């Protein structure tokens, strides 16, 4: 045997190990099934005569999902099993009624639709990407990311392995300043960049339970990503994965702990100087709210030498302009200005706010981000309770529940695994081998408004009677 060829390969394919982490708090039934009891009884009597008391035939039920498989059959349906197929209504329209349950319909808030909440719950609990039969069932387009489609390539595939080849598509991104030229004399003193295997980090959230942060920290370690926090007591055991947001109070502590990445309020140039002077091996990122002049601010900060910009909108993805725009719009503006000024490659852009579904990741990257930060999605995955609107960063109404950190970690690992898989689906459809090539590639996307104007040109407007 040739000893050269028999050596085990050191190559390990990147994969995120998902495994079931079922809901610990009961989730609402999606469908509400009910039977008119008198009619149901009458139907049973009728069928008993029709089928001459043949029990097997009389009691054979229309539901293949076992909703009427309980002791009391249709009199007490097992509602949690209903998938809304409507066959019982087709067979017995005078007896059966199926509708979306009230608890389901009131889930979430004005931004988080019940469907989105269910999607995140299912992704976090199963670790499997959502697959359904028949076609798309939702709205045609919409605002923000909903009004955007990604491109596909008819004949180019990044790997020849079809669905098995997804491991060969890179989703790694770098955080930090990249040298723009070969530096023989070691003139560039920038710290080396840090790589994350998936272009997603956990963003900061206002005060939260210790267990939640333990789950976040542990998940960040398992996934090789980072979590941002303004409170450095959170997830302390996972400090190497922490990106502290530094303010006056935490400056000394931060300088002492020397994190690999640090964030600060982009308006505090004094802090920036202190950090750059004292933490020469750390990647320094400025947090900048997205608003009218964010592009100019971003250029100024890039020129001053920050290594990255964390651009954020509110939790519903609206920026902080007088007339708020969706993060997709404002992100594009900042990215394009940085490109125009020749500064884009000097900084990493992290985008957060309103990144709540898997498709938002590639779409935010197309709009110009290198990677994204997720926030309320983390809490939804951990079955937090909606108590009102979740829009405002300071006062969002989403109450975390008590969790077991190990369970929470698995839920977040599952979420990342599923989002990673879906990112790969998008990249492979586009024929791309590396997520870094997607950044700012607006040409590989299609906007509802633009396509509509082009394709419906010449069609007169009218009002419906």
């Amino acid at each position: 045997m040739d000893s050269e060829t028999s050596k085990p390969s050191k190559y390990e394919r990147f994969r995120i190990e998902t495994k079931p982490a079922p809901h610990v708090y009961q989730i609402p039934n999606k469908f509400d099934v009910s039977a008119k009891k008198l009619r149901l009884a009458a139907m049973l009597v009728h069928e008993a005569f029709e089928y001459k008391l043949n029990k097997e035939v009389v009691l054979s039920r229309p539901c293949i999902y076992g909703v009427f498989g309980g002791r009391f059959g249709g009199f007490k349906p097992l509602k949690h099993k209903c998938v809304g197929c409507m066959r019982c209504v087709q067979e017995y329209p005078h007896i059966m009624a199926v509708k979306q349950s009230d608890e389901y319909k009131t889930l979430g808030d004005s931004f988080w639709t019940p469907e989105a909440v269910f999607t995140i719950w299912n992704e976090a609990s199963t670790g499997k990407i959502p697959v359904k039969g028949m076609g798309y069932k939702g709205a045609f387009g919409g605002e923000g990311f909903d009004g955007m489609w990604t491109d596909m390539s008819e004949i180019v595939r990044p790997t020849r392995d079809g669905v098995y080849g997804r491991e060969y598509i890179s989703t790694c991104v770098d955080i930090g300043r990249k040298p723009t030229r070969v530096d023989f004399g070691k003139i560039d003193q920038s710290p080396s960049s840090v790589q994350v295997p998936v272009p997603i980090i956990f963003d900061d959230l206002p005060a939260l339970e210790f267990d939640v942060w333990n789950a976040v920290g542990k998940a960040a370690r398992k996934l090789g990503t980072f979590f941002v926090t303004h409170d450095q007591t959170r997830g302390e055991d996972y400090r190497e994965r922490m990106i502290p947001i530094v303010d006056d109070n935490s400056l000394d502590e931060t300088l002492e702990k020397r994190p690999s990445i640090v964030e600060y309020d982009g308006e505090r140039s004094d802090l920036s100087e202190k950090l750059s002077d004292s933490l020469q091996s750390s990647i320094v990122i400025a947090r900048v709210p997205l608003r009218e002049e964010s592009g100019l601010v971003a250029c100024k900060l890039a020129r001053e030498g920050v290594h990255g910009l964390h651009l954020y909108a509110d939790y519903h993805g609206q920026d902080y302009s007088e007339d708020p725009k969706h993060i997709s719009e404002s992100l594009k503006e900042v990215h394009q200005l940085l490109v125009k000024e020749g500064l884009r490659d000097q900084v990493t852009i992290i985008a957060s706010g309103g990144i709540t579904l898997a498709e938002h990741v590639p779409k935010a990257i197309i709009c110009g981000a290198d990677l994204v930060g997720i926030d309320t999605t983390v809490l939804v995955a951990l079955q937090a309770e909606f108590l009102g609107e979740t829009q405002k960063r300071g006062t969002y109404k989403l109450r975390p529940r008590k969790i077991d950190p190990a369970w929470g970690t698995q839920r977040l690992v599952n979420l990342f695994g599923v989002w990673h898989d879906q990112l790969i689906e998008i990249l492979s459809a586009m024929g791309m081998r590396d997520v870094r090539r997607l950044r700012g590639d607006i040409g590989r996307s299609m906007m509802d408004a633009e396509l509509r104007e082009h394709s419906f040109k010449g069609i007169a407007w009218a009002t419906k009677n």
Partner: protein
Amino acid sequence: MGNQELIVEKHSERIHHGLEVLPTLRHGLPAGLGNKRWTAELILATYEMALTGDLPKNGLEHKIGDSGGGFDVLGWKNNGFPKVDQDSVDLSISLNKRGEGRKIEIPLPIYGGGMSFGSISLNFMLARVRAAQKIGTYTSTGEGGYPDAIVPYRDHVITQVATGMFGVREETIQYAPIVEFKYAQGAKPGLGGHLLADKVTSEVAKMRESSMFTSLYSPFPFHSVYSVEDHKKHVDWIKTVNPRALVSVKVSTPTDVDMVAIGSYYAGANIIHIDGGYGGTGAAPEIAKKNIAMPIEYAIPKVHDYLVSEGVRDDIVLIASGGIRTADDIAKAIALGADGCVVATAEAVAVGCTHCGNCERGRGCQVGITTTDPELSQFIEPEWGEQRIVNLYTAWTKRLRWILAGFGLKNIRELRGRKDLLVRYK
């Protein structure tokens, strides 16, 4: 009759009865039925048309859904009363506009889209091919091979050649009046196909020359095609095996769909079939359906205009699919620039589909459409299904004729590219 047969008969009768009763709205509009694209009313209107062969008389909405865009925000200019005799309106289109090759005409601008054996029941497949034969149009095998049971209908069956090459044999290509290359599918563009293990029964495995109860993937893309020249070789291959066959090329709707279309023309295709993202599929990741590639409403004018500007529009047939639900969608697609449409989901709705999306769960479709379960498959008797599909198209024919007659058009070919007859609503 044994109990199993009695059970099938019982539920079959009940389902069929329900499809008759529900559109009467005697029990109201079922609250849990439908979604934005296929609203409850649209589903019930389709049941009604499949029952009567006529448009609903009780005001059920049969023209548009509630998606808030695309076909659903387009309407017709007020065209008043018919200006020509509706019965004389010609709905036929040609499927070969090239100077050479076989001339094929279909009496209405519709043929059936690919739904493969394995992803749908044999009974539903039979219903579809029988309906195609009765109408004088075609339906496509999809990628699951060519069951013996449909060979008698082969003059109305399009053989699909897709990347998995399942069931593609010399004889199935030679049977075909039209061979369809599936490069991509709108609902899962760029992702290939996936038949879940549960559906790969012994018959399905035999047909696809694979192992039982093992998931089957059709890769993406064709591994032998990396250029228009490679694609031309494919077309030439089919034309060598079956010189009489017309060739259709089914593609998705990327940003450069117009270039793809011209490439297909160059390669010798007779039909360029563009499939938008909002159409049907067996199982597909939700992320793909909603987010990848453009809706068909936007792709049609892009391709039509480009083919016109290249001076080849009258040499190639442009067929649109992926979200065509109603007769009005068809007429709008044609007014936007298509020659005709491919329809699949509406045929499933005609036989009882609720667009619930549970096709891949457990035993498959509860009413026997997308399933290989021996009991459930029996809910669709081929003759019954055939008649329902024929009825649906008969009703659509009436609506199409009404639209055309209102504009004084005697021929559906005159509607092509007439965006000026459309209006759009805010």
